[in-house]
Protein backbone atom coordinates (compact mmCIF):
# COMPACT_ATOMS: atom_id res chain seq x y z
CA UNK A 1 0.00 0.00 0.00
CA UNK A 2 2.67 2.44 1.07
CA UNK A 3 4.90 1.35 -1.77
CA UNK A 4 2.25 1.66 -4.42
CA UNK A 5 1.16 5.08 -3.24
CA UNK A 6 4.70 6.36 -3.32
CA UNK A 7 5.01 5.04 -6.87
CA UNK A 8 1.77 6.49 -8.15
CA UNK A 9 2.27 9.98 -6.76
CA UNK A 10 5.87 11.06 -6.98
CA UNK A 11 6.19 14.47 -5.45
CA UNK A 12 8.54 15.80 -8.11
CA UNK A 13 6.62 15.38 -11.38
CA UNK A 14 2.92 15.50 -10.66
CA UNK A 15 0.85 14.43 -13.69
CA UNK A 16 -1.52 17.07 -14.99
CA UNK A 17 -4.98 16.10 -13.68
CA UNK A 18 -8.21 17.93 -14.51
CA UNK A 19 -10.77 18.18 -11.79
CA UNK A 20 -14.46 17.76 -12.63
CA UNK A 21 -15.26 21.47 -12.67
CA UNK A 22 -12.47 22.26 -15.06
CA UNK A 23 -13.57 19.37 -17.28
CA UNK A 24 -17.13 20.67 -17.30
CA UNK A 25 -15.99 24.16 -18.27
CA UNK A 26 -13.91 22.76 -21.11
CA UNK A 27 -16.77 20.61 -22.42
CA UNK A 28 -19.08 23.62 -22.19
CA UNK A 29 -16.72 25.88 -24.12
CA UNK A 30 -16.09 23.20 -26.71
CA UNK A 31 -19.79 22.53 -27.28
CA UNK A 32 -20.52 26.25 -27.45
CA UNK A 33 -17.78 26.70 -30.03
CA UNK A 34 -19.13 23.82 -32.11
CA UNK A 35 -22.66 25.18 -31.89
CA UNK A 36 -21.60 28.67 -33.02
CA UNK A 37 -19.50 27.19 -35.81
CA UNK A 38 -22.41 25.05 -37.02
CA UNK A 39 -24.69 28.08 -36.86
CA UNK A 40 -22.27 30.32 -38.76
CA UNK A 41 -21.59 27.76 -41.47
CA UNK A 42 -25.22 26.68 -41.70
CA UNK A 43 -26.54 30.24 -41.98
CA UNK A 44 -24.02 31.11 -44.68
CA UNK A 45 -24.85 27.93 -46.60
CA UNK A 46 -28.58 28.64 -46.22
CA UNK A 47 -29.31 25.33 -44.42
CA UNK A 48 -31.91 26.97 -42.17
CA UNK A 49 -34.98 29.10 -42.79
CA UNK A 50 -34.67 31.88 -45.31
CA UNK A 51 -33.18 35.05 -43.82
CA UNK A 52 -31.78 33.32 -40.73
CA UNK A 53 -28.94 35.52 -39.41
CA UNK A 54 -25.43 34.23 -38.90
CA UNK A 55 -23.91 33.73 -35.46
CA UNK A 56 -21.45 36.57 -36.03
CA UNK A 57 -24.20 38.99 -37.02
CA UNK A 58 -26.23 38.02 -33.92
CA UNK A 59 -23.23 38.41 -31.60
CA UNK A 60 -22.49 41.77 -33.17
CA UNK A 61 -26.03 42.89 -32.41
CA UNK A 62 -25.79 41.50 -28.88
CA UNK A 63 -22.63 43.51 -28.36
CA UNK A 64 -24.27 46.66 -29.74
CA UNK A 65 -27.43 46.33 -27.62
CA UNK A 66 -25.57 45.53 -24.41
CA UNK A 67 -23.12 48.40 -24.88
CA UNK A 68 -25.90 50.87 -25.74
CA UNK A 69 -28.63 49.80 -23.31
CA UNK A 70 -30.15 53.18 -22.50
CA UNK A 71 -31.43 55.27 -25.39
CA UNK A 72 -34.91 56.51 -26.04
CA UNK A 73 -36.14 57.28 -29.54
CA UNK A 74 -39.82 56.73 -28.75
CA UNK A 75 -41.71 53.60 -27.69
CA UNK A 76 -40.77 51.58 -30.77
CA UNK A 77 -37.05 52.31 -30.54
CA UNK A 78 -36.11 51.99 -26.90
CA UNK A 79 -32.78 50.73 -25.52
CA UNK A 80 -32.93 47.17 -24.20
CA UNK A 81 -31.86 48.40 -20.76
CA UNK A 82 -35.01 50.51 -20.49
CA UNK A 83 -37.15 47.64 -21.70
CA UNK A 84 -35.52 45.34 -19.18
CA UNK A 85 -36.17 47.81 -16.35
CA UNK A 86 -39.82 48.16 -17.44
CA UNK A 87 -40.23 44.38 -17.33
CA UNK A 88 -38.40 44.05 -14.03
CA UNK A 89 -40.51 46.79 -12.49
CA UNK A 90 -43.74 45.04 -13.48
CA UNK A 91 -42.42 41.75 -12.15
CA UNK A 92 -41.27 43.38 -8.92
CA UNK A 93 -44.65 44.97 -8.22
CA UNK A 94 -46.79 42.01 -9.23
CA UNK A 95 -44.53 39.48 -7.58
CA UNK A 96 -44.27 41.43 -4.31
CA UNK A 97 -48.05 41.80 -4.19
CA UNK A 98 -48.44 38.07 -4.88
CA UNK A 99 -45.96 37.17 -2.14
CA UNK A 100 -47.57 39.50 0.37
CA UNK A 101 -50.86 37.70 -0.20
CA UNK A 102 -49.52 34.16 -0.66
CA UNK A 103 -47.24 33.88 2.37
CA UNK A 104 -49.67 35.01 5.11
CA UNK A 105 -52.57 33.21 3.45
CA UNK A 106 -50.44 30.09 3.08
CA UNK A 107 -49.56 30.21 6.77
CA UNK A 108 -53.22 30.52 7.74
CA UNK A 109 -54.28 27.72 5.41
CA UNK A 110 -51.41 25.49 6.53
CA UNK A 111 -52.28 25.82 10.19
CA UNK A 112 -55.87 24.73 9.86
CA UNK A 113 -56.99 21.40 8.44
CA UNK A 114 -60.43 22.83 7.76
CA UNK A 115 -59.03 25.86 5.93
CA UNK A 116 -56.73 23.76 3.79
CA UNK A 117 -59.58 21.49 2.77
CA UNK A 118 -61.93 24.42 2.21
CA UNK A 119 -59.52 26.46 0.09
CA UNK A 120 -58.02 23.58 -1.83
CA UNK A 121 -60.68 23.62 -4.60
CA UNK A 122 -59.97 27.28 -5.39
CA UNK A 123 -56.25 26.72 -5.53
CA UNK A 124 -56.52 23.58 -7.64
CA UNK A 125 -58.95 25.25 -10.05
CA UNK A 126 -57.05 28.52 -10.47
CA UNK A 127 -53.52 27.12 -10.48
CA UNK A 128 -53.56 25.46 -13.93
CA UNK A 129 -55.04 28.44 -15.77
CA UNK A 130 -52.70 29.87 -18.38
CA UNK A 131 -51.63 33.39 -17.37
CA UNK A 132 -52.62 34.73 -20.78
CA UNK A 133 -56.21 33.66 -20.20
CA UNK A 134 -56.40 36.46 -17.61
CA UNK A 135 -55.21 39.08 -20.07
CA UNK A 136 -58.55 40.10 -21.63
CA UNK A 137 -60.15 40.14 -18.21
CA UNK A 138 -57.35 42.32 -16.85
CA UNK A 139 -57.60 44.76 -19.77
CA UNK A 140 -61.34 44.95 -19.35
CA UNK A 141 -61.17 45.56 -15.60
CA UNK A 142 -58.22 47.96 -15.49
CA UNK A 143 -58.43 49.57 -18.98
CA UNK A 144 -54.68 50.01 -18.63
CA UNK A 145 -51.84 47.88 -19.99
CA UNK A 146 -49.49 48.64 -17.10
CA UNK A 147 -51.94 47.54 -14.40
CA UNK A 148 -52.97 44.54 -16.45
CA UNK A 149 -49.35 43.40 -16.71
CA UNK A 150 -48.90 43.65 -12.96
CA UNK A 151 -52.22 41.88 -12.39
CA UNK A 152 -51.24 38.95 -14.59
CA UNK A 153 -47.90 38.59 -12.85
CA UNK A 154 -49.66 38.62 -9.52
CA UNK A 155 -52.39 36.14 -10.34
CA UNK A 156 -49.99 33.64 -11.88
CA UNK A 157 -47.15 33.84 -9.38
CA UNK A 158 -49.33 33.55 -6.30
CA UNK A 159 -49.96 29.79 -6.48
CA UNK A 160 -46.57 28.13 -6.01
CA UNK A 161 -45.81 30.31 -2.98
CA UNK A 162 -49.26 29.71 -1.53
CA UNK A 163 -49.14 25.95 -2.01
CA UNK A 164 -45.56 25.59 -0.75
CA UNK A 165 -46.11 27.80 2.28
CA UNK A 166 -49.25 25.93 3.27
CA UNK A 167 -47.45 22.61 2.80
CA UNK A 168 -44.44 23.76 4.82
CA UNK A 169 -46.56 25.05 7.68
CA UNK A 170 -48.80 21.96 7.73
CA UNK A 171 -45.75 19.69 7.85
CA UNK A 172 -43.69 21.36 10.55
CA UNK A 173 -42.00 18.55 12.46
CA UNK A 174 -43.99 17.41 15.44
CA UNK A 175 -40.79 17.49 17.52
CA UNK A 176 -40.53 21.28 17.34
CA UNK A 177 -44.18 21.66 18.25
CA UNK A 178 -43.76 19.28 21.19
CA UNK A 179 -40.84 21.35 22.50
CA UNK A 180 -42.91 24.50 22.19
CA UNK A 181 -45.83 22.81 23.93
CA UNK A 182 -43.82 21.46 26.86
CA UNK A 183 -42.37 24.93 27.42
CA UNK A 184 -45.87 26.34 27.52
CA UNK A 185 -45.22 28.77 24.65
CA UNK A 186 -48.15 30.92 23.57
CA UNK A 187 -49.80 30.28 20.22
CA UNK A 188 -48.38 33.51 18.78
CA UNK A 189 -44.86 32.77 19.99
CA UNK A 190 -45.08 29.26 18.55
CA UNK A 191 -46.17 30.65 15.18
CA UNK A 192 -43.46 33.29 14.91
CA UNK A 193 -40.57 31.54 16.64
CA UNK A 194 -41.20 27.94 15.60
CA UNK A 195 -43.69 27.36 12.80
CA UNK A 196 -42.60 30.11 10.40
CA UNK A 197 -38.84 29.52 10.75
CA UNK A 198 -39.41 25.78 10.43
CA UNK A 199 -41.43 26.30 7.24
CA UNK A 200 -39.03 28.87 5.82
CA UNK A 201 -37.20 26.48 3.47
CA UNK A 202 -40.55 25.55 1.90
CA UNK A 203 -41.64 29.17 1.72
CA UNK A 204 -38.44 30.23 -0.01
CA UNK A 205 -38.61 27.41 -2.55
CA UNK A 206 -42.21 28.44 -3.26
CA UNK A 207 -41.00 32.01 -3.78
CA UNK A 208 -38.32 30.71 -6.12
CA UNK A 209 -40.81 28.83 -8.30
CA UNK A 210 -43.11 31.85 -8.29
CA UNK A 211 -40.29 34.11 -9.43
CA UNK A 212 -39.54 31.75 -12.30
CA UNK A 213 -43.19 31.83 -13.34
CA UNK A 214 -43.40 35.63 -13.03
CA UNK A 215 -40.43 35.97 -15.36
CA UNK A 216 -41.90 33.46 -17.82
CA UNK A 217 -45.23 35.24 -17.85
CA UNK A 218 -44.08 38.85 -18.21
CA UNK A 219 -42.50 38.31 -21.61
CA UNK A 220 -45.62 36.64 -22.98
CA UNK A 221 -47.91 39.25 -21.48
CA UNK A 222 -45.84 42.17 -22.73
CA UNK A 223 -46.19 41.10 -26.33
CA UNK A 224 -49.69 42.50 -26.03
CA UNK A 225 -48.88 45.43 -23.75
CA UNK A 226 -46.76 47.87 -25.76
CA UNK A 227 -43.53 48.06 -23.72
CA UNK A 228 -40.95 45.91 -21.96
CA UNK A 229 -38.81 43.02 -23.20
CA UNK A 230 -41.79 41.08 -24.51
CA UNK A 231 -42.87 44.03 -26.59
CA UNK A 232 -39.30 44.44 -27.81
CA UNK A 233 -39.49 40.94 -29.26
CA UNK A 234 -42.90 41.58 -30.75
CA UNK A 235 -41.66 44.84 -32.28
CA UNK A 236 -38.62 43.17 -33.83
CA UNK A 237 -40.92 40.48 -35.21
CA UNK A 238 -42.92 43.21 -36.91
CA UNK A 239 -39.64 44.63 -38.22
CA UNK A 240 -38.72 41.06 -39.21
CA UNK A 241 -35.26 41.56 -37.77
CA UNK A 242 -34.35 38.16 -36.34
CA UNK A 243 -30.92 38.98 -34.77
CA UNK A 244 -32.58 41.34 -32.28
CA UNK A 245 -35.14 38.69 -31.36
CA UNK A 246 -32.28 36.32 -30.58
CA UNK A 247 -30.53 39.03 -28.54
CA UNK A 248 -33.68 39.56 -26.47
CA UNK A 249 -34.13 35.82 -25.95
CA UNK A 250 -30.57 35.58 -24.67
CA UNK A 251 -31.00 38.51 -22.31
CA UNK A 252 -34.30 37.16 -20.96
CA UNK A 253 -32.56 33.87 -20.24
CA UNK A 254 -29.63 35.55 -18.50
CA UNK A 255 -31.85 37.70 -16.28
CA UNK A 256 -34.02 34.68 -15.40
CA UNK A 257 -30.89 32.77 -14.45
CA UNK A 258 -29.71 35.59 -12.19
CA UNK A 259 -33.08 35.92 -10.48
CA UNK A 260 -33.12 32.17 -9.87
CA UNK A 261 -29.61 32.24 -8.44
CA UNK A 262 -30.62 34.89 -5.92
CA UNK A 263 -33.30 32.53 -4.64
CA UNK A 264 -30.97 29.55 -4.71
CA UNK A 265 -28.70 31.55 -2.43
CA UNK A 266 -31.61 32.43 -0.13
CA UNK A 267 -32.69 28.77 0.00
CA UNK A 268 -29.23 27.82 1.09
CA UNK A 269 -29.26 30.57 3.70
CA UNK A 270 -32.37 29.25 5.46
CA UNK A 271 -31.74 25.51 5.14
CA UNK A 272 -29.37 24.97 8.14
CA UNK A 273 -28.43 21.50 7.10
CA UNK A 274 -31.91 20.48 6.04
CA UNK A 275 -32.10 19.31 2.45
Amino acid at each position, binding site marked *: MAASSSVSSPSSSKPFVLNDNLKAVLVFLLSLGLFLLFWEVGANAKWFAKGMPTASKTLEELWWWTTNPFFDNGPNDLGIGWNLLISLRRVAIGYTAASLIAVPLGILIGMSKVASKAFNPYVQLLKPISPLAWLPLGLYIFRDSEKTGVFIIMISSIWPTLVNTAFGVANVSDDYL*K*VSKTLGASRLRTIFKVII*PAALPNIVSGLRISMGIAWLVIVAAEMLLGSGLGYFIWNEWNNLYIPNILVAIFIIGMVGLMLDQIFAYLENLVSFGRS
Partner: protein
Amino acid sequence: MHTVSNPAIPTSMEAPIGVQLSLRQVSKVFPGKRGFLNRKSSSDFVAIDEISLDVEHNTFVTIIGPSGCGKSTLLNIIGGLSEATTGTVTMDNRPIIGPGPDRGMVFQNYALMPWMTVADNIKFAVETVYPKLSTAQLNQIVSENIQLVDLNGSERKHPHELSGGMRQRVGIARALAINPKVLLMDEPFGALDALTRGYLQEEIERIWEQHRKTVIMITHSIDEALLLSDKIVMMTRGPAAKIDQILDVPFPRPRDRNSVEHHPEYDALRTEMEAHLYRETRYVEQSRI
Protein backbone atom coordinates in the same frame (compact mmCIF):
# COMPACT_ATOMS: atom_id res chain seq x y z
CA MET B 1 -34.62 -9.72 47.17
CA HIS B 2 -34.43 -6.08 46.11
CA THR B 3 -37.86 -6.20 44.69
CA VAL B 4 -40.59 -4.12 46.07
CA SER B 5 -43.75 -5.69 44.81
CA ASN B 6 -46.23 -3.41 43.17
CA PRO B 7 -47.73 -1.56 46.14
CA ALA B 8 -51.37 -2.03 46.89
CA ILE B 9 -53.23 0.57 44.93
CA PRO B 10 -54.27 3.40 47.21
CA THR B 11 -57.63 4.81 46.39
CA SER B 12 -57.26 8.32 47.77
CA MET B 13 -55.97 11.16 45.60
CA GLU B 14 -53.56 12.30 48.29
CA ALA B 15 -50.08 11.02 47.63
CA PRO B 16 -47.96 9.69 50.51
CA ILE B 17 -45.53 12.09 52.17
CA GLY B 18 -42.29 12.63 50.27
CA VAL B 19 -43.87 11.70 46.99
CA GLN B 20 -43.52 14.25 44.23
CA LEU B 21 -45.16 12.61 41.31
CA SER B 22 -48.02 10.22 41.69
CA LEU B 23 -49.85 8.12 39.12
CA ARG B 24 -53.12 6.50 40.09
CA GLN B 25 -54.65 3.79 37.90
CA VAL B 26 -53.56 5.51 34.73
CA SER B 27 -54.78 3.85 31.55
CA LYS B 28 -54.47 4.91 27.95
CA VAL B 29 -56.76 3.54 25.29
CA PHE B 30 -56.30 4.47 21.66
CA PRO B 31 -59.73 4.21 20.06
CA GLY B 32 -60.03 1.93 17.04
CA LYS B 33 -60.59 3.37 13.61
CA ARG B 34 -64.16 3.73 12.58
CA GLY B 35 -65.05 2.66 9.10
CA PHE B 36 -67.93 3.44 6.81
CA LEU B 37 -71.30 3.97 8.55
CA ASN B 38 -69.53 4.12 11.90
CA ARG B 39 -68.88 0.42 12.09
CA LYS B 40 -65.69 -0.33 13.94
CA SER B 41 -63.07 -1.51 11.50
CA SER B 42 -60.45 -2.08 14.19
CA SER B 43 -60.77 -2.60 17.91
CA ASP B 44 -59.59 -0.22 20.63
CA PHE B 45 -55.98 -0.54 21.65
CA VAL B 46 -55.19 -0.49 25.34
CA ALA B 47 -51.62 0.76 25.57
CA ILE B 48 -51.21 0.90 29.34
CA ASP B 49 -53.59 -0.53 31.86
CA GLU B 50 -54.17 0.96 35.32
CA ILE B 51 -50.64 1.92 36.16
CA SER B 52 -49.98 3.33 39.62
CA LEU B 53 -46.60 4.66 40.56
CA ASP B 54 -45.17 7.01 43.17
CA VAL B 55 -41.96 8.90 42.54
CA GLU B 56 -40.26 10.50 45.51
CA HIS B 57 -38.37 13.80 45.45
CA ASN B 58 -34.82 13.75 44.10
CA THR B 59 -34.88 10.23 42.82
CA PHE B 60 -33.67 8.96 39.49
CA VAL B 61 -36.23 6.53 38.10
CA THR B 62 -35.81 4.55 34.91
CA ILE B 63 -38.59 2.77 33.11
CA ILE B 64 -37.53 -0.30 31.19
CA GLY B 65 -39.57 -2.79 29.22
CA PRO B 66 -39.87 -4.58 25.91
CA SER B 67 -40.44 -2.42 22.87
CA GLY B 68 -44.01 -1.37 22.28
CA CYS B 69 -44.97 -1.67 25.93
CA GLY B 70 -46.22 1.89 26.26
CA LYS B 71 -43.22 3.43 28.00
CA SER B 72 -43.32 6.49 25.79
CA THR B 73 -47.08 6.73 26.20
CA LEU B 74 -46.59 6.80 29.95
CA LEU B 75 -43.91 9.48 29.73
CA ASN B 76 -46.04 11.58 27.38
CA ILE B 77 -48.89 11.42 29.87
CA ILE B 78 -46.60 12.62 32.65
CA GLY B 79 -45.28 15.32 30.32
CA GLY B 80 -48.83 16.39 29.56
CA LEU B 81 -48.44 15.83 25.83
CA SER B 82 -50.99 13.05 25.93
CA GLU B 83 -54.03 12.66 28.13
CA ALA B 84 -54.73 9.60 30.26
CA THR B 85 -57.98 7.90 29.30
CA THR B 86 -58.66 7.10 32.93
CA GLY B 87 -56.81 7.68 36.17
CA THR B 88 -55.02 10.69 37.54
CA VAL B 89 -51.48 12.04 37.53
CA THR B 90 -50.56 14.50 40.25
CA MET B 91 -47.41 16.44 40.90
CA ASP B 92 -46.99 17.89 44.39
CA ASN B 93 -50.64 16.96 44.91
CA ARG B 94 -51.83 19.04 41.97
CA PRO B 95 -53.28 17.21 39.00
CA ILE B 96 -51.38 17.43 35.72
CA ILE B 97 -53.72 18.70 33.05
CA GLY B 98 -51.35 19.64 30.28
CA PRO B 99 -47.75 20.29 29.40
CA GLY B 100 -45.87 22.79 31.51
CA PRO B 101 -42.37 24.06 32.27
CA ASP B 102 -42.32 22.31 35.68
CA ARG B 103 -41.46 19.22 33.65
CA GLY B 104 -38.46 19.46 31.33
CA MET B 105 -38.36 17.03 28.44
CA VAL B 106 -35.41 15.49 26.62
CA PHE B 107 -36.26 13.77 23.35
CA GLN B 108 -34.64 10.81 21.65
CA ASN B 109 -34.10 12.73 18.41
CA TYR B 110 -32.95 15.87 20.28
CA ALA B 111 -35.71 18.08 18.76
CA LEU B 112 -33.42 21.08 18.52
CA MET B 113 -34.50 23.95 16.28
CA PRO B 114 -32.12 23.75 13.32
CA TRP B 115 -32.31 27.48 12.59
CA MET B 116 -31.23 28.46 16.10
CA THR B 117 -27.68 28.33 17.42
CA VAL B 118 -26.88 26.27 20.51
CA ALA B 119 -27.23 29.36 22.70
CA ASP B 120 -30.44 30.44 20.96
CA ASN B 121 -32.03 27.03 21.43
CA ILE B 122 -31.48 27.28 25.17
CA LYS B 123 -32.40 30.95 25.23
CA PHE B 124 -35.67 30.24 23.43
CA ALA B 125 -36.66 27.84 26.20
CA VAL B 126 -35.67 30.14 29.06
CA GLU B 127 -37.28 33.17 27.45
CA THR B 128 -40.51 31.28 26.89
CA VAL B 129 -40.74 30.14 30.50
CA TYR B 130 -39.39 33.32 32.13
CA PRO B 131 -40.36 36.18 29.82
CA LYS B 132 -39.60 38.84 32.43
CA LEU B 133 -35.90 38.12 32.82
CA SER B 134 -33.44 40.82 31.79
CA THR B 135 -31.09 40.12 28.90
CA ALA B 136 -28.17 39.87 31.31
CA GLN B 137 -29.96 37.30 33.49
CA LEU B 138 -31.02 35.40 30.40
CA ASN B 139 -27.49 35.23 29.04
CA GLN B 140 -26.24 34.23 32.48
CA ILE B 141 -28.59 31.21 32.62
CA VAL B 142 -27.75 30.23 29.05
CA SER B 143 -23.99 30.31 29.63
CA GLU B 144 -24.29 28.47 32.95
CA ASN B 145 -26.15 25.63 31.29
CA ILE B 146 -23.79 25.50 28.33
CA GLN B 147 -21.00 25.23 30.88
CA LEU B 148 -22.88 22.50 32.74
CA VAL B 149 -23.02 20.21 29.71
CA ASP B 150 -19.48 21.13 28.71
CA LEU B 151 -20.27 22.82 25.40
CA ASN B 152 -18.22 25.99 25.81
CA GLY B 153 -17.04 27.26 22.46
CA SER B 154 -20.00 25.81 20.56
CA GLU B 155 -22.53 28.47 21.56
CA ARG B 156 -22.74 29.97 18.09
CA LYS B 157 -22.86 26.71 16.20
CA HIS B 158 -26.04 25.41 14.64
CA PRO B 159 -27.25 21.87 15.46
CA HIS B 160 -26.28 20.47 12.05
CA GLU B 161 -22.67 21.35 12.82
CA LEU B 162 -22.67 19.20 15.98
CA SER B 163 -22.31 15.47 16.57
CA GLY B 164 -25.26 13.48 17.91
CA GLY B 165 -23.77 13.41 21.38
CA MET B 166 -23.27 17.18 21.40
CA ARG B 167 -26.80 17.72 20.15
CA GLN B 168 -28.23 15.68 22.98
CA ARG B 169 -26.14 17.66 25.45
CA VAL B 170 -27.80 20.79 24.09
CA GLY B 171 -31.16 19.02 24.53
CA ILE B 172 -30.29 18.28 28.16
CA ALA B 173 -29.05 21.83 28.77
CA ARG B 174 -32.26 23.21 27.29
CA ALA B 175 -34.39 21.01 29.52
CA LEU B 176 -32.40 21.92 32.65
CA ALA B 177 -32.16 25.64 31.86
CA ILE B 178 -35.84 26.20 32.61
CA ASN B 179 -35.24 24.77 36.08
CA PRO B 180 -37.99 22.14 35.97
CA LYS B 181 -39.04 20.17 39.03
CA VAL B 182 -38.88 16.91 37.11
CA LEU B 183 -36.77 15.94 34.13
CA LEU B 184 -38.37 13.51 31.66
CA MET B 185 -36.07 11.74 29.25
CA ASP B 186 -37.39 9.53 26.45
CA GLU B 187 -34.57 7.19 25.46
CA PRO B 188 -32.14 10.10 25.40
CA PHE B 189 -29.22 8.04 24.13
CA GLY B 190 -31.15 5.73 21.80
CA ALA B 191 -29.88 7.39 18.64
CA LEU B 192 -26.22 7.47 19.69
CA ASP B 193 -23.40 5.03 19.01
CA ALA B 194 -22.26 2.84 21.91
CA LEU B 195 -19.14 4.82 22.82
CA THR B 196 -20.87 8.19 22.82
CA ARG B 197 -23.74 6.66 24.77
CA GLY B 198 -21.39 5.40 27.48
CA TYR B 199 -19.73 8.79 27.70
CA LEU B 200 -23.02 10.67 27.95
CA GLN B 201 -24.33 8.28 30.61
CA GLU B 202 -21.41 9.24 32.82
CA GLU B 203 -22.04 12.89 31.99
CA ILE B 204 -25.65 12.48 33.11
CA GLU B 205 -24.47 10.93 36.36
CA ARG B 206 -22.09 13.87 36.89
CA ILE B 207 -24.78 16.46 36.09
CA TRP B 208 -27.34 14.67 38.22
CA GLU B 209 -25.05 14.81 41.25
CA GLN B 210 -25.03 18.60 40.92
CA HIS B 211 -28.80 19.11 40.77
CA ARG B 212 -30.32 15.89 42.06
CA LYS B 213 -33.54 16.68 40.30
CA THR B 214 -36.19 14.05 40.02
CA VAL B 215 -35.63 12.24 36.74
CA ILE B 216 -37.83 9.78 34.90
CA MET B 217 -35.97 8.18 32.05
CA ILE B 218 -37.00 5.56 29.53
CA THR B 219 -34.31 3.19 28.39
CA HIS B 220 -33.68 -0.14 26.71
CA SER B 221 -30.32 -0.61 28.34
CA ILE B 222 -29.90 -2.61 31.53
CA ASP B 223 -26.44 -1.18 32.19
CA GLU B 224 -27.67 2.35 31.70
CA ALA B 225 -30.52 1.77 34.15
CA LEU B 226 -28.19 0.26 36.76
CA LEU B 227 -25.60 3.02 36.43
CA LEU B 228 -28.03 5.90 36.77
CA SER B 229 -31.13 4.94 38.69
CA ASP B 230 -32.32 4.76 42.25
CA LYS B 231 -35.37 2.84 41.16
CA ILE B 232 -35.99 0.76 38.09
CA VAL B 233 -39.57 0.27 36.95
CA MET B 234 -39.91 -2.85 34.84
CA MET B 235 -42.98 -2.97 32.64
CA THR B 236 -44.69 -5.97 31.13
CA ARG B 237 -45.24 -6.33 27.42
CA GLY B 238 -48.08 -4.49 25.75
CA PRO B 239 -50.89 -4.26 24.94
CA ALA B 240 -52.36 -3.40 28.32
CA ALA B 241 -48.90 -3.04 29.80
CA LYS B 242 -48.55 -2.92 33.56
CA ILE B 243 -45.75 -2.46 36.02
CA ASP B 244 -44.24 -5.84 36.72
CA GLN B 245 -41.67 -4.98 39.35
CA ILE B 246 -39.89 -2.02 40.86
CA LEU B 247 -36.25 -2.61 41.76
CA ASP B 248 -34.34 -0.54 44.29
CA VAL B 249 -30.77 0.13 43.25
CA PRO B 250 -28.67 0.42 46.39
CA PHE B 251 -25.31 1.53 44.91
CA PRO B 252 -23.74 4.48 46.72
CA ARG B 253 -23.32 7.81 44.90
CA PRO B 254 -21.47 9.39 43.23
CA ARG B 255 -21.16 6.42 40.92
CA ASP B 256 -18.99 5.45 38.06
CA ARG B 257 -19.24 2.43 35.83
CA ASN B 258 -16.39 0.63 37.50
CA SER B 259 -17.56 0.94 41.10
CA VAL B 260 -21.12 0.02 40.12
CA GLU B 261 -20.05 -3.10 38.28
CA HIS B 262 -18.04 -4.28 41.28
CA HIS B 263 -20.81 -3.76 43.77
CA PRO B 264 -21.80 -7.12 45.33
CA GLU B 265 -25.43 -6.77 44.35
CA TYR B 266 -24.77 -5.76 40.75
CA ASP B 267 -24.86 -9.25 39.26
CA ALA B 268 -28.02 -10.28 41.04
CA LEU B 269 -29.86 -7.16 39.88
CA ARG B 270 -28.62 -7.55 36.37
CA THR B 271 -29.66 -11.20 36.21
CA GLU B 272 -33.09 -10.34 37.48
CA MET B 273 -33.58 -7.60 34.89
CA GLU B 274 -32.29 -9.76 32.08
CA ALA B 275 -34.62 -12.58 33.02
CA HIS B 276 -37.57 -10.21 33.04
CA LEU B 277 -36.72 -8.52 29.75
CA TYR B 278 -35.92 -11.76 27.94
CA ARG B 279 -39.15 -13.32 29.12
CA GLU B 280 -41.26 -10.37 28.04
CA THR B 281 -39.44 -9.95 24.75
CA ARG B 282 -39.82 -13.66 23.98
CA TYR B 283 -43.57 -13.40 24.43
CA VAL B 284 -43.67 -10.32 22.20
CA GLU B 285 -41.68 -12.01 19.46
CA GLN B 286 -43.67 -15.26 19.66
CA SER B 287 -46.97 -13.45 19.51
CA ARG B 288 -45.94 -11.93 16.21
CA ILE B 289 -45.49 -15.26 14.45
